[in-house]
């Protein structure tokens, strides 16, 4: 053997790994960079969106929600309503099994729902109607209600935090405020705990024993959940530029939430397709602290309305392309059944800072200090806070803008102290389309004082209307109530909607049939 042959052989061997790395990702593996790190695997314990998305992979729900918000049977085969709607018996589909091989029984469902009802706002409301929730046998569970609850199936299919995922009884017996240590569901994917490295990798294997709904088409969380990948990996990459580069190189297949400047870059790559992850937009809100000066003054909150230009806030998040945001946005997600224009005139009429300043004077604002709190590390709230800070300065508020990381904001916003004792006056954040679809999980719209979401407005009329909505007999009645809710909210101003924006997602262009709405992993396949 010649020396040169040996050297060439060595060089070829050394080059092998390079060649391997240049190959596309394996056909049966889907690699995705999610919006955030999966820290907790218990979707009832925490409301983080990433944990909810994880929940939809591993667990299943009795009912699924279609893209047009119709609850349809998922684990349920169907239901029977008796006693004027006071008794609802749900029957489970055949063949449902948990990942540990055990069959799904009605007792698993009742225990899971009981745990869920302790944490979810819709669940808590439902609980107040429930006289008894019992497993009649292994296949049937029954709700016995004090009064008819027309939104029962919507609650059981809810997509917003937290969906009522079904777990084995032994896990569902865990206190709702204690985190589960084990993940066993009956959903289309199995969680692989041995590979779980929070902050780096979350791996799932296809649940070969999963029995999809036999009919229909996939729509949001409803319909057959048919999986086309043997394995899904969530790769946690915190750096946007690195994620984009990995997508361009084919090291990953899907980048869930690229920021706007990265979207521009990715659009130039023919191997990458950009689309709306959810056809419905997220809503931005300007939230007031109702407990202290200056925004405990309703007139002052109203005074801001002529100054709000929703396009300013939204273009700060998604850039100048108007197709990516909506203005004239009210209290409910645009494009959903309860969205309406009642009472929105102060937001949709001519914009005028002078008018706002005049109203501020009329409201008696005399340079009281106010504090705006906001994060620097999360795109949408950060962008809205910057625009808001500028607006407050131009209006002549005695502003203290306190920027910090999200973790600090989350703690600081729970403070009920006045400004001079470290409290806050106003903040910006955004909510997913599902949160604002209806009043059930719409917590900025609550008016229940000390128990309300941060800001703590006391608006009894909003609470009355919310209660009425839960028992409204049909959609027309619900829409009438929604109009009234919005009219009251625009008068009392618990918060100001500052527009709605579309969140885009980026995938390798050979991926097709993605189910839109959330990062869902059934339906999607390689072309």
């Amino acid at each position, binding site marked *: 053997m010649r020396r040169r042959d040996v050297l060439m052989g060595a060089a070829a061997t050394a080059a092998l790994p*390079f060649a391997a790395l240049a190959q596309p990702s394996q056909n049966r593996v889907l690699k995705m960079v999610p919006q955030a790190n999966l820290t*907790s695997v218990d979707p009832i314990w925490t409301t983080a969106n990433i944990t909810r998305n994880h929940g939809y992979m591993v667990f299943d729900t009795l009912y699924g929600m279609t893209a047009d918000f119709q609850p349809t049977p998922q684990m349920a085969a169907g239901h029977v309503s008796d006693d004027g709607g006071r008794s609802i018996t749900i029957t489970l589909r055949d063949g449902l099994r948990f990942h540990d091989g055990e069959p799904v029984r009605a007792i698993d469902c009742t225990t899971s729902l009981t745990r869920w009802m302790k944490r979810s706002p819709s669940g808590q409301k439902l609980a107040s109607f429930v006289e008894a929730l019992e497993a009649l046998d292994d296949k049937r569970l029954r709700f016995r209600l004090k009064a008819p609850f027309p939104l029962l199936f919507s609650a059981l299919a809810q997509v917003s935090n937290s969906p009522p995922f079904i777990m084995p009884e032994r896990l569902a017996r865990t206190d709702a405020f204690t985190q589960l240590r084990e993940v066993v569901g009956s959903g289309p994917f199995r969680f692989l705990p041995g590979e779980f490295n929070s*902050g780096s990798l979350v791996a799932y294997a296809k649940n070969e024993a999963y029995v999809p709904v036999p009919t229909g088409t996939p729509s949001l969380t409803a319909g057959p959940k048919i999986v086309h990948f043997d394995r899904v990996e969530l790769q946690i990459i915190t750096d946007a530029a690195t994620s984009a*580069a990995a997508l361009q*190189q084919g090291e990953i297949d899907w980048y869930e939430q690229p920021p706007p400047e990265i979207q521009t870059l990715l659009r130039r790559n023919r191997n990458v397709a950009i689309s709306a992850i959810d056809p419905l937009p997220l809503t931005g809100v300007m939230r007031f602290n109702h407990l202290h000066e200056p925004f405990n003054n309703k007139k002052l909150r109203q005074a801001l309305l002529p100054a709000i230009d929703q396009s300013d806030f939204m273009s700060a998040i998604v850039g100048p392309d108007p197709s990516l945001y909506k203005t004239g946005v009210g209290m409910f997600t645009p494009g959903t059944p309860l969205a309406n224009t009642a009472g929105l005139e102060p937001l949709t009429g001519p914009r005028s800072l002078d008018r706002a300043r005049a109203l501020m004077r009329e409201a008696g604002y005399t340079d009281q200090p106010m504090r705006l709190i906001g994060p620097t590390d999360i795109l949408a709230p950060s962008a809205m806070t910057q625009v808001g800070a500028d607006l407050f300065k131009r209006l002549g508020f005695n502003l203290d803008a306190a920027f910090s990381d999200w*973790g600090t904001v989350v703690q600081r916003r729970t403070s009920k102290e006045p400004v001079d004792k470290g409290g806050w006056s106003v903040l910006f954040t955004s909510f997913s389309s599902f949160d604002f679809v209806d009043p059930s999980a719409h917590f900025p719209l609550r008016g229940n004082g000390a128990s309300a979401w941060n800001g703590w407005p006391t608006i009894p009329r909003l609470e009355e209307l919310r209660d009425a909505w839960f028992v409204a007999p049909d959609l027309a009645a619900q829409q009438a109530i929604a109009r009234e809710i919005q009219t009251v909210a625009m008068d009392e101003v618990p918060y100001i909607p500052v527009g709605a924006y579309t969140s885009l997602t980026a995938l390798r262009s050979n991926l097709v049939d993605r189910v839109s709405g959330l990062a869902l992993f059934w339906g999607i396949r390689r072309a």
Partner: protein
Amino acid sequence: MWAYVIRRVLATIPVMAVVALFVFSLLYLAPGDPAAIIAGDQATPQDVERIRASLGLDRPYLVRFGAWVWDIAHGDLGTSIFTNLPVSRMIEQRIEPTLSLMVVTLILAISIAVPMGVVAAWKQGTIIDRAVMGFAVLGFSVPVFVVGYLLAYIFALELDWLPVQGYTPFERGIGPWFQNLILPAIALGGVYIALIARITRATMLEVLSQDYIRTARAKGAGQVSILFLHALKNAAVPIVTVIGIGIALLIGGAVVTESVFAIPGLGRLTVDAILRRDYPVIQGVVLLFSFVYVLVNLVIDLAYTLFDPRIRY
């Protein structure tokens, strides 16, 4: 010498105790509430309070500190508030990538920087010297993340030679393992190379002006022998000291490098834990870093005896 080593190892105990007290107190005083983060937007104040109580965060400072120290004394670093996983397991999952990155960076940096510094001193005042010093200034001035992005752009995106991101465990083969570490190690090593090259040059210049070097030349010793056997060995003590001090630079730089190259190491674990206020993880990692730093200094002190026989412990 063994008595010295034992004394030094024992001395780490009070050092670690002070670090523990300091870290715990800082976290206690820092703003942020993991219970509020966990509870989410819809939680009532009562929910947040229940979660805080279930995590033991409502207990007084001294009780929490005492419990933590007691657990550590029993070899238990605690459990992550968010993942519910033992901190020791989370560290175990992350230690290999960070260790790999640091080892590769160290080897790369020392093997480039020391010869650079030696040659610069040898060729003092020439264009080679100026080029080395120019590189050193550049190494100090350009942030790690800028170097990282540039390297990824050129060698991964444009040339397609190396992966953009990620880490392959050593057990899957030295080739893939090394592929993933080349770019991060170069990015992280820049400032380290600059530091070592500068101190090597300065020390070598001093040593090269000594009488015994002139004597070696007069006796006909070759240039390589003079530089690397006579001069470098005598210049080694300050160089080794800087290498040791530079470990802290590496630890700090690893946080940024791991983020840019998506390496699942301890640096990213620390940042993620800080952002979430995952106190047990922050405390565990900082304690580990402090221990490593103390240990590295001990190793450096012991290494002096290899280079300078006059040093005895």
